[in-house]
């Protein structure tokens, strides 16, 4: 949907609701619609507690999806983020237990996340190895490394101050939710109003044209991976600081949940299009679906199957839409 600029109305701004892309509208409607339907079947779904828990517990996925969306918009992918989050969470917890200052336990994951992802970005951009291969290898390095270093030990006795996620802003907004909202807004604004943010879309849309317009696809790609690492670090913090005990394992299937959020949120695997508002909304929707399954007495073991179907349907629809658009150019 685009706002039609009528001659003479040059600076008229389209009303807010029309500026959201159709995918975002669709997601918002789905979130509300699903809540209503499930609420009719089982009213306990709509209890304030449940909804709050839903948002609180899954905010970290939305945050991680911000970085993932950026990576996919440039036409690449990353399947190592789940393992990275596991590593960063364990790092943070270990530092806290070892008595490091709280600020360090919160900053260290960010730094390491940026470094690890940045390295992958360099290999993908400058050596030209497909991202799927690099991140597949890194996934195993991280996963294996984590287990061999920690032996799978659980981290207990976390100091109280560690639990960033327990903090409530203005007394009632949980920190994870606040961070999710703030991060989404900041990222969305940056990607819309800052030239470097637009460079992400240019690199993904047509790298050759981007180069000729003065955008460096290589540098943009490395930057995007580094940002992805940063958001993965924040996600790891939100994930770790919610728990009393940190299992030194990598959450299984996390990367695919994050990818699903991005893709269902409107980010196309072919690159060049998508928004972080969309991926955050999609992350909320996915969390809602997972919770809804429980409330309508469907076993939670079907969650991944539902996710897989969602992502498959979205991707196929995207390809079909592109094919149809190319076949019959409107104007």
């Amino acid at each position: 949907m685009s706002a039609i600029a009528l001659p003479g109305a040059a600076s008229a701004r389209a009303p807010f609701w029309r500026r959201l892309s159709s995918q975002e509208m669709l997601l918002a409607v789905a979130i509300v619609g699903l809540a209503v339907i499930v609420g009719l079947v089982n009213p306990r779904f709509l209890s304030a507690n449940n909804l709050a828990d839903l948002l609180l517990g899954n905010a970290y996925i939305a945050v991680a999806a911000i970085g993932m969306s950026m990576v996919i918009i440039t036409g690449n992918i990353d399947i190592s983020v789940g393992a990275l989050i596991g590593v960063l969470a364990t790092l943070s917890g270990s530092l806290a237990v070892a008595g490091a200052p709280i600020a360090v336990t919160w900053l260290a994951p960010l730094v390491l996340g940026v470094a690890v992802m940045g390295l992958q970005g360099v290999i993908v951009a400058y050596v030209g190895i497909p991202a799927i291969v690099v991140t597949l290898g890194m996934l195993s390095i991280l996963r294996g490394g984590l287990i061999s270093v920690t032996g799978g030990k659980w981290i207990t006795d976390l100091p109280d101050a560690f639990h960033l996620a327990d903090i409530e802003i203005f007394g009632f907004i949980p920190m994870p939710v606040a961070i999710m909202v703030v991060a989404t807004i900041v990222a969305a604004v940056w990607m819309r109003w800052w030239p470097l943010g637009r460079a992400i879309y240019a690199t993904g849309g047509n790298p050759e044209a981007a180069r000729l317009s003065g955008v460096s696809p290589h540098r943009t790609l490395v930057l995007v991976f580094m940002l992805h690492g940063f958001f993965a670090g924040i996600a790891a913090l939100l994930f770790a600081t919610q728990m009393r005990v940190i299992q030194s394992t990598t959450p299984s299937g996390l990367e695919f949940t994050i990818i699903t959020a991005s893709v269902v949120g409107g980010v196309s695997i072919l690159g060049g299009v998508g928004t972080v508002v969309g991926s955050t909304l999609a992350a909320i929707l996915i969390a809602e679906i997972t919770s809804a399954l429980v409330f309508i007495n469907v076993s939670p073991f079907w969650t991944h199957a539902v996710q897989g179907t969602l992502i498959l349907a979205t991707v196929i629809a995207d390809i079909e839409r592109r094919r149809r658009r190319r076949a019959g150019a409107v104007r």
Partner: protein
Amino acid sequence: MSAAQDTPTPLLEVRGIEKSFPGVRALSGVSFDVRAGEAHALIGENGAGKSTLIKIMSGVFRPDSGSILVEGRETRLATPDDARRAGIATIYQELLLFPELSVAENIFLGHAPRAKGGWIDWGAMRAKAEELLASLDIDDLPADETVGALSVGNRQRVEILRALSHDARVVIMDEPTAALTEADVTRLFDIVRRLKARGVAIIYISHRLDETFAIADRVTVLRDGAYVGTRLTRETNSGELVQMMVGRRIDNMFPKTEAPIGEPVLEARDLVRRPLTKSISITVRAGEIVGLAGLVGSGRSELAQTLFGVWPAESGEIRLMGEAVTIRSPAEARARGIAYVPEDRGSQGLVRPMSVLHNLSLAALTSLTHGGFIDRAAELRLAEQAVGRFGVKMRSLDEVAGRLSGGNQQKIVLGKWLANQPKLLILDEPTRGIDVGAKAEIHRFMGELARAGVAILMISSELPEVLGMSDRVLVMREGRVVAEFDRAAATPQAVGAAMMGDTGAAEKAA
């Protein structure tokens, strides 16, 4: 060159440009210039060097020797960025746009107007985009529209606007009308006139002479990499230009030997395949060479690919040897004895990383395979035969096909298809980019094949080749066959005129 007006310093000038690539001398001693407010057309056949020349002017290639002057000052254009900074903008056929971004953003990507603090000022961007649109009197293209949804004509407009947003003084357009509708072409001309009025210099590469006369002030002809001449368009005519483009070398080049012409092998009636094949009827007989002439974009390759099953026909009838058939895939076409040597050797004809041996057997695998297994001895025999027959120069059959010269590569593509002993051979630009010696050899083979009873449909943009080799010449324009000449009546003037759409001159010359 007449100097009826005073000649100010050209905005862009090249002198004595030489450029060679391995095996091919693309440009030899070409000079060219363009002035402010002028539209200067650059014409010539395929392979004449136009594309190389504009790539040099755009900073994509660097000349082996010669000089480039921008507003009289000698300049080095080592990269496309240098050209852009010098005020030269090039609009290629493959448009370099971002399909998911808006018109305004496409225009200003990389140099968007900024508000305080460095943020992008979308309002200013849209306003400036609308200014640019208005300056070219475009009132039906919203600045917020997504480029991917636009027609080719509108996308081209966006590209032109992008050039203008960089304050381009020289705009080079490479075959801009190849994919446009008539209405779009008219609008493009309007834009060109406005640009001229603003003092922008336009270099306009095209095959279409009628367009040249419509908007160009001067026209320069290249032929085989050499400069032939420059004329004021109002002081010349299409006949003279065609002669300059084509030259008079027809007789000695192509040893046309007579072949007995037999029954029709291919009879196609009213073939339609959107968007480029509008309604084609064509007949090719055994032993006959039918030349298919036409401008780039006239739909010749698309017709060939429809006959070959790459884009199956939507309606119409095809008869092979009198039998009605439907051809829905290349495999079906091959099974019925049709062979197609494609236009683009590198990406369609050969698998360059594979060996010569494997390339030669690629189209004949089904006949070389028994129970799934390839008969290697038979494959080797086939390859040795082909290589011997065509005189392919290579180090061994295991050599990577991509390393051979253009002529030898083409022989392999031919050899690959002749292994199937086709009854109808469709050749699409068979000698493009090939040295003279190999060209002559390929023409000799064509003669042999015709004598052996193969029906040959030859698509070519080189008039001498078409005129020299064909028993009949068909001219295509915008998806239809618009003229047919038998060998005697096919003169450069007649065929050239029919290609350009100048039916009056065509009849006069026939």
